[in-house]
């Protein structure tokens, strides 16, 4: 009995430590939002009352609703499209394995290793030829077929019971019906995890939107916040508010979807 409690206690201590380390910076960011720049630099860790000031200052500097809308538009559309196209591909590569498709997949994995900086300029030229510079589409399209997510879905599909598919085929279901009506519900937790990851990647996407978006009207929130930080006189309080606000949507998506994990457990096929 006793060793069991000790083990439990130890687990809680470790988890609490991990949680504290993980959360403290976020907490510091929120506290910073309520303080003035001078206080933040002095290392103040208590709440102040400069929140309204900081928010007002921020609203004067940037068109916050527009930035939010731009970021949201890109993230939502990109995430939805990625879920569809990349999960289809991941399923396809795993279920319909052929010698040829394996070679193609290996090539895809190799392509994952190219750092973005190397393809940035040719990609920019392609977008220019399609007259898509400074559009949100130019930001979305290159991310939609995500090798990373294809890879993830492929690995996850390995634990999709083949008996389910075999049974469905016997029942006369077509392939797309199997995908839609059997695969999707079973793999719900995989979709949930992938959605969180992709939404976050798109929301925080920095380098490519920086290159391809030219005007204040198309800019995303992430870009605007970075711009605030490198001014000659960066106002930390304002930057903190901006980054806190910029973080909220991803947090919200996470909270909304983590329940799916549990539901995935209850609903997963045995």
């Amino acid at each position, binding site marked *: 009995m006793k060793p069991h409690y000790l083990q439990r206690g130890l687990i809680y201590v470790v988890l609490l430590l991990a949680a504290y380390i993980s959360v403290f910076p976020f907490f510091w960011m929120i506290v910073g939002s309520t303080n003035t*720049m*001078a206080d933040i*630099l*002095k290392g103040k860790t208590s709440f102040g009352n400069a929140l309204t000031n900081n928010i007002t200052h921020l609203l004067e*500097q940037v*068109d916050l609703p*527009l930035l939010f809308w731009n970021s949201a538009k890109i993230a939502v559309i990109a995430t939805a499209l990625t879920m569809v196209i990349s999960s289809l591909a991941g399923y396809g590569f795993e279920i319909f394995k052929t010698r040829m498709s394996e070679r193609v997949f290996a090539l895809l994995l190799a392509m994952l290793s190219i750092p973005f900086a190397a393809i*940035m*300029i040719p990609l*920019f*030229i392609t977008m*220019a*030829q399609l*007259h898509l*510079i*400074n559009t949100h589409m130019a930001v979305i399209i290159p991310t939609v077929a995500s090798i990373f997510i294809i890879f993830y879905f492929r690995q996850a599909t390995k634990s999709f019971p083949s008996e389910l598919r075999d049974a469905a085929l016997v029942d006369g279901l077509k392939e797309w019906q199997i995908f839609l009506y059997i695969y999707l519900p079973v793999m719900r937790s995989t979709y949930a995890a992938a959605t969180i990851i992709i939404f976050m990647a798109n929301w925080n996407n920095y380098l490519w939107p*920086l*290159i391809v978006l*030219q*005007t*204040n*009207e198309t800019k995303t929130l992430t*870009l605007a916040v*970075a*711009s605030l*930080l*490198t*001014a*000659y*006189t*960066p106002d*930390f309080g304002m930057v903190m508010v901006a980054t806190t606000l910029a973080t909220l949507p991803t947090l919200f998506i996470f909270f909304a979807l983590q329940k799916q994990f549990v539901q995935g457990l209850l609903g997963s096929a045995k």
Partner: protein
Amino acid sequence: MKNAFSRRSVLGAALAGISFLGATAAFAGTTVTVWCWDKEFNGATMKEAGARYAKAHPDVTLNVVDFAKPDMEQKLQAQLASGTTDGLPDIVLIEDYGAQKYLQSFTKAFEPLSDTKAIDYKTFANYKVALATVGDKTYSLPFDSGVSGMFYRSDYLAQAGYKSADLQDITWEKLIEVGKAVEAKTGHKLLDLDLSDQGLLRIMMQSAGIWYFSPDGKPAIAGNAKFKTVLSTYAKVLQSGIYKPVSGWAEYTGTFTSGETAAAITGVWMTATIKANKDQSGKWSIAPVPKVDGVEGAVHASNLGGSSWYVLASSKNKAAAIDFLAQEWGKDADFYQKILVNQGALGSFLAARDGEAYKASDAFFGGEATWQNFSTWLGKIPGVNYGTFTNEADAAVSAQVPALVKGGSVDDAIKAIDAQLKQQMQ
């Protein structure tokens, strides 16, 4: 088709951006797009210029788009490298250190303004014109000067027994003495330095009339006695302990504006940042930069940063952009007074120095005629050729700084810097 597309999108952007910018409500006509960094400084001066120009030319609207500085440079370089001109602005701000890099890397991308004869370059500080000239063509409208000074907390220095007169004609060695005394008597370190940023070295070099490169663009590091003296002086400062090491721009400015350190040797454009702390009014003063001892012709004047406006050759609104620059930035001395007072922007337009604002004294800096001082120093800055590889040279020096801090040999450092620089230049 392409024309219509970009004109439409630019107009659409201007229309949408009007409420956002709070600019004058001009509708049809030309929109001149400007890219720059720092909304409060560069952006603000551009908007002021735009508003003034609009009075005589109500059909021209200015659209100022701001980015973080390194982001804008990367974005510009990426787009110029791609060869596509879709979406490029009409006017872009480029920092002086990088001017030659852009002009020589992307030769056809910029409009040689000297060809238009709209701008009289003799009315601008010589060193600014030289750095934007390739062959016999000049490409820029010179903007702010980075003429440097030593901003210091007069209250801390007074506590340590130093008055303004004591700091007028000093060497770096003397500065080290001052720094040690200040720390002993007040507990505040004199300076703060980001050891990955070689701004201080650049100030020293230009004040001594040299640069990493000789006028013909070749590296002037190895076998250059003047460079060795400058680097040795820099090493002395690094080893002196009179500074607090910091990392990053925000920490750098935050440290002296909060009063943690006593001084900052930097460009005049830092004035706005310092003056933003209104409660410190009267506690600051400005001295000339120390002189490098042992180099003939070294002066108490130098430059850090500074930038200029360039017109893209691909611009559809070239004529309007050039006329705007020539009329406002090239002739309007009153405009320069305004941006001096409001943004602390010291232009390179020589005639502006006769204006009222430039002669005024500033209570913030203890009633000194700050701008006058800077103007005087501006005239003394030795002109040097920044060349195209300044960033590479900075990186080569940064690689050796930790060794120098620990007291390593200057000769070894010079050898290593020279080797790395030559490697990068190939």
